[in-house]
């Protein structure tokens, strides 16, 4: 189907111009036609006048001729006088000219006068003939008198008069016609002129008015939009160029409006973030001050007691120190949680996905939590459906998440029941975990705030129940990192249920600033190389070093395997800790790479099994972790990491932390003589520590028995069998004496700047 063409401004203007030109042409044509018509009529009128004059002259000639002939005839009869030939010829000539005169009328003969004219001619010719004979036979006496011609002459004259009168009537008619024509053409011309003017004026007016209206609307809209009213839409009145312009303008203002909205939104977000940050800082300050108050207060009190009374109620002092310690721990927990949150928020918390059985982890957790639940008289129950598939997600985060939720449930429930309900939603392919308690519950407004940082349901809750108020915020962030969702329902006084939904398979996403696997691997190879370099100093070991990799992630295992082979090591693998221990005993590897990603407790248990068994205790173990698991190591309380050749700054801080009152402590250094050991000795002496050096296990054992040791440093450069022995010996000593001695392991190898930098990354490693 044909659509009518768009009435654009251009088309409109073209049509107007064409119309005006056409009318102008028409006017011209009418003028031409009427002018021609007028000329024609005018000609006719002139002819009529000419014929009138002709008739008058013919009459005159006829009468003259008649008179002349009558005179001649009378002369002939009375005088008998003859005419000379010359006179006769003159008479004949007169006749001829008369005839010519009559013939000259012919062009003026109209249809109306034709009959009359013909009759006239007929009569005149007869008369003419008679007159000729009169002239020709004048000198002949026999020629009769002309008298009888009189009648013919009279008839001719009568016919001439008739012709004349008809001619006059016809001419009058002609004149009338001419007048009519002139009047008619004048009218038409005038009408067309007027119409052209009217059309031109109205077209011009319409064009101006119409264009002006659209332009005015456009102008008004532009001013409004320019003034900031970006929501304003200019009405579209026309389907033409201005309409197009208006549409484009509206689109532009829409885009501008969207952009402005986005900017506004971003600004609000930034403001909100800023407010949150300020709030967070205020809260943080509050949270840090509370435990600090106890720490400072009790410390001052102990100092006062000691200084003023010179005696110390030992029991009271220990109690107070315990309080300082517990406040300090709370402070540490707080800082760790804040760091965790900051790490998540800055996108630096990496996710390590692997395939794991969620129910197994939950069962392990239940074992861990059992004593805590029992303490508050709670019953721990797991209900599970059998169709839960293995999950591909971050197992460590999953464990921490559920541990947090369970600890929370235990914390807020007394003599109640805590239920974990694990199931699988076939439709959404989500594993669903409900953690319900029958504890104190929350009000609606408390529920709203529960996932926010530093907000426990009630600000006084933390004082009663402990905790930093950050646990649930971290949980929520964890779940989001794990691409799941988390929700809570609660009834005050009845209990709370947290629901966690996790996808069975987390989509792969590259965390910001994650270390590419290659780098992680290089790192472990470096560490392995160094470990061997130190341990094998005395050995002439040309043998291929055998390394056992205990890791449950097939991909990671394969990767490590390849890298180790490339690095010139012989790699053997175990995909679980049980097999790992078995293989370690049977094959006696030179080194074990134990992954912390296997449910972490499992790894720590494995480590202790390996270290306790006589068959494996001599084998160095490198704990591998892609996460910042340093904290786990610290939490164990005995072994700490010093990954670099003594960083003085760090060392000093650590030492001062251990000995804040500047008391003289006793440090035991187990390491062969080396630069690293000497610099450590110097450092310790500077910090007023009393140092004892031992280079063998036996020696150090003796010292431990004899003296009260506050801290132990072990160099990695000591024979590797000895390190293991010393570690076992130390743990036994601690068990027997009930004393907790911090143990630092130092590598004693100068690491390149690059290595040091890498060691600071989250993929740091714990060397034991």
């Amino acid at each position, binding site marked *: 189907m044909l659509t009518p063409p768009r009435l654009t401004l251009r088309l409109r203007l073209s049509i107007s111009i064409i119309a005006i030109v056409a009318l102008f042409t028409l006017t011209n044509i009418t003028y031409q036609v009427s002018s021609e018509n007028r000329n024609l009529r005018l000609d006719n009128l002139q002819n009529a006048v000419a014929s009138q004059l002709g008739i008058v002259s013919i009459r005159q000639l006829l009468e003259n001729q008649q008179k002349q002939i009558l005179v001649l005839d009378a002369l002939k009869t009375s005088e008998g006088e003859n005419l000379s030939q010359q006179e006769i010829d003159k008479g004949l000539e007169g006749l001829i000219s008369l005839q010519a005169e009559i013939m000259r009328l012919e062009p003026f003969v109209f249809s109306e006068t034709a009959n009359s004219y013909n009759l006239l001619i007929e009569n005149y010719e007869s008369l003419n003939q008679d007159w000729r004979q009169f002239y020709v036979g004048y000198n002949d006496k026999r020629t009769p008198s002309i008298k009888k011609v009189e009648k013919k002459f009279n008839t001719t004259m009568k016919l001439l008069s008739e012709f004349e009168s008809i001619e006059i009537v016809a001419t009058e008619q002609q004149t009338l016609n001419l007048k009519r024509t002139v009047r008619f053409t004048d009218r038409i011309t005038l009408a067309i002129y007027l119409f052209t003017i009217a059309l031109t004026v109205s077209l011009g007016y319409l064009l101006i008015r119409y264009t002006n209206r659209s332009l005015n609307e456009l102008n008004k809209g532009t001013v409004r939009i320019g003034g900031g009213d970006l929501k304003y839409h200019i009405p579209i009145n026309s389907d033409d160029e201005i309409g197009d312009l208006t549409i484009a303008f509206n689109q532009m203002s829409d885009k501008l409006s969207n952009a402005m909205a986005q900017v506004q939104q971003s600004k609000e977000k930034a403001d909100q973030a800023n407010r949150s940050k300020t709030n967070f800082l*205020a809260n943080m*300050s*509050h*949270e840090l*001050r*509370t435990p*600090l*108050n*106890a*720490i*400072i*207060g*009790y410390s*001052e*009190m102990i100092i*006062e007691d000691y200084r003023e009374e010179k005696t110390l109620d030992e029991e009271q002092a220990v109690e107070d120190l315990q*309080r300082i310690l517990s*406040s300090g721990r709370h402070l540490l927990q707080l800082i760790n949680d804040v760091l965790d949150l900051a790490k998540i928020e800055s996108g630096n918390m990496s996710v390590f996905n692997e395939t794991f059985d969620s129910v197994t982890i939950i069962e392990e957790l239940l074992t861990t939590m059992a004593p805590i639940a029992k303490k508050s008289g709670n019953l721990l129950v797991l209900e599970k459906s059998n169709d839960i598939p293995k999950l591909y997600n971050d197992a460590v985060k999953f464990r921490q998440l559920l541990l947090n939720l369970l600890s929370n449930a235990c914390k807020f429930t007394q003599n109640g029941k805590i239920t974990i309900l694990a199931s699988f939603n076939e439709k959404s392919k989500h594993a669903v975990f409900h953690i319900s308690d029958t504890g104190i519950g929350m009000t609606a407004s408390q529920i709203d705030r529960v996932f926010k940082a530093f907000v426990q349901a*009630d*600000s*006084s809750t933390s*004082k*009663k129940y402990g905790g930093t108020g950050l646990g649930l915020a971290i949980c929520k962030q964890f779940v989001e990192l794990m691409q799941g969702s988390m929700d809570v329902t609660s009834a005050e006084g009845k209990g709370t249920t947290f629901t966690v939904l996790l996808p069975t398979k987390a989509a792969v996403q590259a965390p910001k600033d994650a270390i590419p696997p290659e780098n992680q691997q290089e790192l472990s190879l470096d560490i392995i190389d160094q470990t061997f370099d130190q341990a094998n100093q005395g050995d002439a070991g040309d043998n291929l070093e055998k390394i056992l990799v205990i890791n449950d992630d097939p991909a990671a295992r394969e990767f490590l395997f390849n890298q180790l082979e490339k690095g010139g090591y012989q790699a053997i693998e175990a995909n679980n800790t049980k097999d790992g221990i078995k293989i370690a005993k049977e094959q006696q590897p030179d080194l074990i790479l134990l992954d912390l990603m296997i449910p972490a407790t499992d790894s720590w248990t494995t480590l202790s099994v390996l270290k306790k068994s006589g068959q494996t205790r001599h084998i160095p173990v490198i704990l591998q972790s892609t996460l910042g698991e340093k904290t786990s190591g610290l939490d164990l309380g005995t072994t700490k990491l010093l990954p670099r050749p003594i960083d003085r700054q760090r060392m000093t801080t650590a030492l001062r932390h251990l000995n804040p009152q500047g008391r003289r402590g006793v440090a035991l250094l187990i390491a062969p003589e080396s630069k690293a050991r000497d610099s450590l000795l110097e450092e310790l002496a500077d910090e007023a520590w009393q140092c004892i050096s031992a280079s063998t296990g036996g020696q150090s054992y003796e010292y431990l028995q004899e003296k009260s040791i506050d801290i132990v440093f072990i160099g990695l450069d000591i024979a590797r069998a000895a390190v293991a022995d010393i570690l076992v010996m130390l743990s036994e000593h601690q068990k027997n004496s009930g004393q907790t001695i911090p143990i630092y392991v130092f590598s004693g190898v100068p690491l390149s700047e690059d290595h040091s930098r890498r060691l600071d990354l989250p993929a740091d490693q714990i060397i034991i």
Partner: protein
Amino acid sequence: MTRLLLVEDNEMNRDMLTRRLKRKGFKIDAAGDGEQALVMIKESIPDLVLMDMNLPIKNGWMTCQEIRANPNTETLPIIALTAHAMAEDKQKALDAGCNDYTTKPIDFPLLLEKIDALLTLNKKKGD
């Protein structure tokens, strides 16, 4: 002997302050929440109140307002003890009717000075 009422819900902080102040020769009564503090004040008006602001049951600000609303305790000196250390927190405590304000961790000598100053001022007024 000067009698102080310490209102503090944190067991550790309550214990610590009670002991330290006792050593300085004050007689200390301790309350764990605002409601309890009001009951104790009703029974016998102390010479001065040390008030934590984040309290369970009835918070410090409300407790202060109620103390001020009672004609008997209109001029009872109150020192706010709080871990909220922002400027507006101080104003909030003063608006609630506290005479003075000190932040945690508590600077003990400063606290003693403040107690002394308020007690002296009150005594002068009483005279």
